[in-house]
C-alpha cells in the first residue's frame, strides 16, 4: 500500500524570532469553511453552537478558543478551526475542507502592531481591532485573514502556495521594527 508523506506549508522555516517578535506556525488541525444554505442562517447558528459549544461569529468577529475556534471568513463563510465539524451541520450548511488550503501563522511580541503596520493597511489600533476581531484583508499584497487572538498576538493566514513569501515578508517587517527599537527616538509614544 502506498504511504504518502504530509508536508507543512512552511516546510521547516518556522519558528523564527527577531528582537521581541516571534513568528510561529499554527497547526490548526481540521479547517472547514461553512456557508449557510438558503434561509438556514439562524438554524445553522444554533445547531453550530449546540454541536461545538461556541457561538456562530458575526461579521468581523471570532468565537471559541485555541483548538476550537470559529472565524468570520468573508461575507457568507465561517471557518471552523480545530474540530472535525459535526456531520449533521450539513443540513444547514455547505461544508468545504480547507485544512490544506491555508498557511497559518501566529505573530506575537512587543511591537507586533508595528510589524503588521508594515504589511497590511488594516487599522489595528487597540480601539479599532480588539481581541476577537478578524478581517479579510491583505498582507504584503497577498489575500489574507488577520485575527487578533491576544493583546500582542495575531493570527495571519494566506494561501498555502504563498506561505514562503509570507514568512519572508514578515521577517523583513520584524527586522525593520527590531532595528528601530534599538534606541531610536522616532515614534515617541504610541496609541495603545
Amino acid at each position, binding site marked *: *500500500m*502506498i*504511504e*504518502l*508523506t*504530509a*508536508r*507543512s*506549508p512552511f*516546510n521547516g522555516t518556522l519558528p523564527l524570532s*527577531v528582537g521581541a517578535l516571534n513568528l510561529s506556525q499554527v497547526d490548526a488541525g481540521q479547517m472547514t*469553511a461553512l*456557508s449557510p*444554505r*438558503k*434561509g438556514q442562517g439562524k438554524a445553522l447558528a444554533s445547531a453550530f453552537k449546540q454541536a461545538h459549544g461556541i457561538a456562530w461569529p458575526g461579521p468581523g468577529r471570532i468565537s471559541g478558543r485555541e483548538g476550537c475556534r470559529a472565524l468570520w471568513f468573508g*461575507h457568507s*463563510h465561517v471557518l471552523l478551526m480545530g474540530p472535525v465539524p459535526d456531520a449533521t451541520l450539513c443540513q444547514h450548511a*455547505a461544508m*468545504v*475542507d*480547507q*485544512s*490544506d*488550503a*491555508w498557511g497559518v501563522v501566529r505573530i506575537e511580541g512587543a511591537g507586533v502592531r508595528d510589524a503588521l*503596520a*508594515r504589511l*497590511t*493597511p*488594516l*487599522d*489595528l*489600533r487597540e*480601539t*479599532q481591532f480588539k481581541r476577537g476581531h478578524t478581517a479579510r484583508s491583505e498582507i*504584503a*499584497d*497577498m489575500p489574507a485573514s488577520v485575527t487578533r487572538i491576544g493583546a500582542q498576538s495575531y493570527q495571519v493566514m494566506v*494561501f498555502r*502556495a*504563498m506561505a*514562503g513569501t509570507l514568512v519572508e*515578508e514578515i521577517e*523583513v517587517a520584524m*527586522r*525593520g521594527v*527590531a*532595528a*528601530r527599537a*534599538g*534606541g*531610536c*527616538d*522616532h*515614534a*515617541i*509614544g504610541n*496609541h*495603545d
Partner: protein
Amino acid sequence: MRLTGGGLIDRGKVMRFTFDGRSYEGVGGDTLASALLANDIRLVGRSFKYHRPRGVMTAGSEEPNALVTVGRGGQQEPNLRATMLELHEGLAARSQNAWPSLDWDLLALNDAFAPFLGAGFYYKTFMWPRAFWERVYEPIIRRAAGLGALSGAHNTDTYEKAHAHCDLLVIGAGPAGLMAAREAARAGADVIVVDEDNRPGGRLNAETEEVDGKPGYLWAQELVAELVAMGNVRLMTRTTVTGVYDQGSFGALERLPAEVAARPGAPRECFWRIATRRAVLAAGSLERPVAFAGNDRPGIMMAGAVRAYVNRWAVAPGRCVAVFGNNDDAHRTAADLMAAGVHVAALIDSRPDARSDLDLPFYAGARVCGSSGRKGLEAVDIELALGRREKIRVDCLAVSGGWNPSVHLACHMGGRPEWSDDIAGFVPRDDMVPGMAVAGASAGAMSTHACLKSGVEAARTTLSELGIKMPDKAPALPQADDAPYRITPLWQVHGKGRAWLDFQNDVTVKDVAQAARENFRSVEHMKRYTTQGMAPDQGKNSNVGALAVLADATGRSIPQTGTTTFRPPYVPVPIAAMGAGAQGQGFAPRRLTTSHAASQSMDAPMIEVGLWYRPSYFPRAGETSWRQSCDREVAHVREAVGIADVSTLGKIDIQGADAAQFLDFVYTNTFSTLKAGRVRYGLMLREDGHVMDDGTTARLGQDHFVMTTTTAAAGQVMRHLEFVHQCLCPGLDVSMISVTEQWAQFAVAGPKSRDLLNGVLDAPVDAERFPFMGCGEVTLGDVEARLFRISFSGEHAYEIAVPARYGESLFRLLVARAEEMGGGAYGMEALNVLRLEKGLLTHAELHGRTTAFDIGMERMISAKKDCIGKAAAARPGLTDPDRERLVGLKPVGAVKQLTAGAHLFGEADAATRENDQGYVTSVGFSPTLGHFAGLGFLKRGPERHGEVIRMVDHLRGIEALCEVTAPAFFDPDGGRARD
C-alpha cells in the same frame, strides 16, 4: 563661524565629516548646512544651467541650492538637501554638477553665454536639423545641465512602507500644530503629529521669543513631552507629509537617523500611508526672496534662515552682515544678529516709512540692487531713496521679501488658494480638502499668538465634527508675541543684470518677462516655457515671486494671474521608498505549487503564470536545448505516460440545491443534465458575449460540483460567480468557495496512465467505473483523493487530486513510476504542444476579444435556456461570418517555422494593414506530426480549410506559407482519449 554661546546644540558631541574629500568638524544637533556654515564654507554647489556658484540659502526642506550627494555605488543618493541632512560621524558629502571641481568648474563657461541661454533657447535653437535633437543636442545639454546623479548600480539600501491610522493628523509641530494636538489629545482623540524636522517646535526653535514666560523652544519641548506622555499621541519626527489623497489618505516620507539606518535590517526611509478621519494643516510658511541683480551669490540667504542659524545652531553665516527686507522681520533679524555679537553693517528696509531704534546704519526706503564677489558675496550695492547708490562691504546678506503660507497640501485635491492683501500672500480657502482644517501661518496667522489661537480653534472645529466631547470653553492661551505683520510687497528691484527667481532651475526675471513678451502669458504656460517651479523644490522659493513678476509684465494683478497647480509630492520622494520591498523578487508574491521543490531538484526552469511558478520543461542528461526536452516529454505522453502538476488551475467548490441551475446560467451549455460522477466541458461568456473562460466541471453529488477554471482566469471567474450570485440571482441556494489551494492535482496522461494509477491506488480503476469524463473518489493508503478522467492532451488521461499536504509526496511517486514505465514529468512547453496538436484552447485564444462563434463553439450556447452573455453574443457584429475565426495552420512553403503574433495575408497580397486577414495566437513544433502546428484567427476561417495563405511576422522578419486546416491536427475524432 560658530558662535561662542547659545544654540540648541550639543557642543560636547563633536562629529567629523567630509565635504568634497576635506575633513571638518561639527557638533550634535547640526545639519550639514549648519556645520558647513560653522566651518565658513559658503560655496556648496553649482547651479543647474549656468553653473553659477551657490551656497546655503534656507534652513529647511525648501532649500534650492545646497544639494549634495552621499554614499557610493548602490548606496549613492544624490540631491540631498544639506539643510535636511542631519550631521553624523563620518558623513561624507560631495558637491554636484561641477567639473572638474566645485571650486574650478569649467562648465561655468555656460554663465558667459547666459545672454543666449534664456527661456525658450532650446526650443528655438535646436529645431534643425531634426534628427540632431536626439543624437547630438540632447546628450550635450543633459551632460551640461543637471543636478546629482545616481550611480547606475542597483540600490542596496533597505526601504520600508507602512500604514498608520488616527482620528486627527496634525501636519507640523510648530505652535499651531502643537496646540491643535494638545486640544485634541486632551479630548481623547487618537492623534498623530508629523513634522519634517528632527526637533518639534517649528519656528520657535529658530527665534528668541518667549511663550508662556519661557523661551519658545522650551515651551514646545515641554508640551511635546506632555503630549507623548498622554498615550494617545504619536509623534513622528523627520517625517514630511508629501501628498493628500481621497478620503483622508496622506502620504508621508520618514527619514531615519543615520545611526538607526545603519543597523542591520533597518530602512533608510519609510513611506507612510496615513489614514485619518480629520487633519489639521499647520505647515507654517516659507520666506520668499526679492529679485535683484546678482541675488544668487553664496552668502545671500533668507533672513529667517539667518536667524535660525544664529539662534538654533549658534552659527554666524557671515562676519559682516547686511539685512534687507520689506517687513519687520528684517529688523528682528538685525536685532538677533547684534544680540549674538555679529556685526551688522546695514539694515535696508524698502518701506520709506520704516523706523528703527537699533544701533546700526539704517536705510529706509532703500533697496539692494546688486551684489559682487567671485565665489561668495563680497559687497552689495544699494539704491537709496534719493537715487544715490552706495556699496557696502559684507559677506552675508539676509533677505526677507515676506512669507508665503505653505498652502501646498491644502491644494492637492485641486483647490486654488486665494490672495490676501493683508499679508501679501496666498492663503487657503475653506474646505479645499474635505476634513482638513488649516491653522497657523499656513492659514495666514503671522504672529505666534495668532498661531496658538488658530491651532486651538482648528482642533475644536475638528473635534466637534467628529462628535468628540471637549470642555465648552477653550483653554486660556499661553502668553505669546502678537506683533502685527507689517509688509509692503516688493517682488523685484528693477535694474541691469540677472535677478534670480528660481534658483534651482536658473530662471530669472528676464526669462519670465520674455515668456510674457512671447505670449506665454498664462502662468501655466510661463512655467513650462521657462521651467520655473519645475526643479526638485517645485518652486517653493519662486512660485509667488515669479507670478508677481509675470503679473507685472502682463499688466494684471496677482490674483488675476493666479497660481500654477500644486501637486504631490511636497518634497522629493525616492522611488525606492514608494516601492519599498518591491525590488527583485519582492515585486510580487510567489505562488509555489507543492511540487515546486521536486521540480527544482530536477533542474526544471520555472516560468511565471500570473503569480504561479510552473516548470517549463525537465531537462535530462545530454539534452542541450529546451526543444529536445519538450519533444521527449511530448513523446512520453503520446507513447507511455507523463505527469504534470495542474494544481494552478482554479478549482471552485459549488454546493446547494440550486447549484445546477446556477451553472446553467453561468455556462453556455447545460449542467443540470450532468449525472453525478461525471465531468463536462463548459464555456463561460462575459456579459458582453465574449468568451471569459472555459474548463471542466465535475458533479460530485446531486448538489455538489467542483468547477475548474484556467490558471489565468481563476480570480476573474471566482469574482464573476460571486457577482452573478450576489447581484443577479441572490435567491438561489448556492454557495461557493475556492479550493484551488486545498487540492494538489496532477495530470497522469498517456496510454499507460491507467496502468500507472493501478499501481498506486488502493483499488484499480477500470473503464466502467471511470469512463472518459467520469470522476469519483479513490484512496491511496490513508489518503482520500479525487480522480477525474479528463484529458488536455488527447490521450487516455486522468487528473488526480490529493489534499495539498500530500502533493509533493504524490508528485515524486507518480514521476518515479512514470519513469519506470518509459515516461516522466512534463512541463508547460510539452503541455502546450500536446494541446496544440489537439487544437485545444488556452487564453492565447480566449484573449477577451473572441466569441464562441469565433472559436467554433457557437453551438455550445444552448438554445433551450438563458445564460450570461447569450443575448449579447447574438448581436449581428458578433456572428458576422466575415469575422476572424479559429483555424489550424501548417507550414507548406520553404520556411517551416510559424510564430505567434504574426499576421495572415492572402498569398498574393502585400503584407499591409489593409490586407490583414487575421493573426496567429499559438505555435509549437509538433514532434508527433513532424512539423510546426499553429492556431490562429482568420477571416471566414472555417470556410477556407485547404487554402494556402501567407504568414508575415513583421517584428521578427519571418514569412511562411501555411495551409489552413481544422484546429485539431492529431486524432481529430478523439478516439485515443476515449479508449
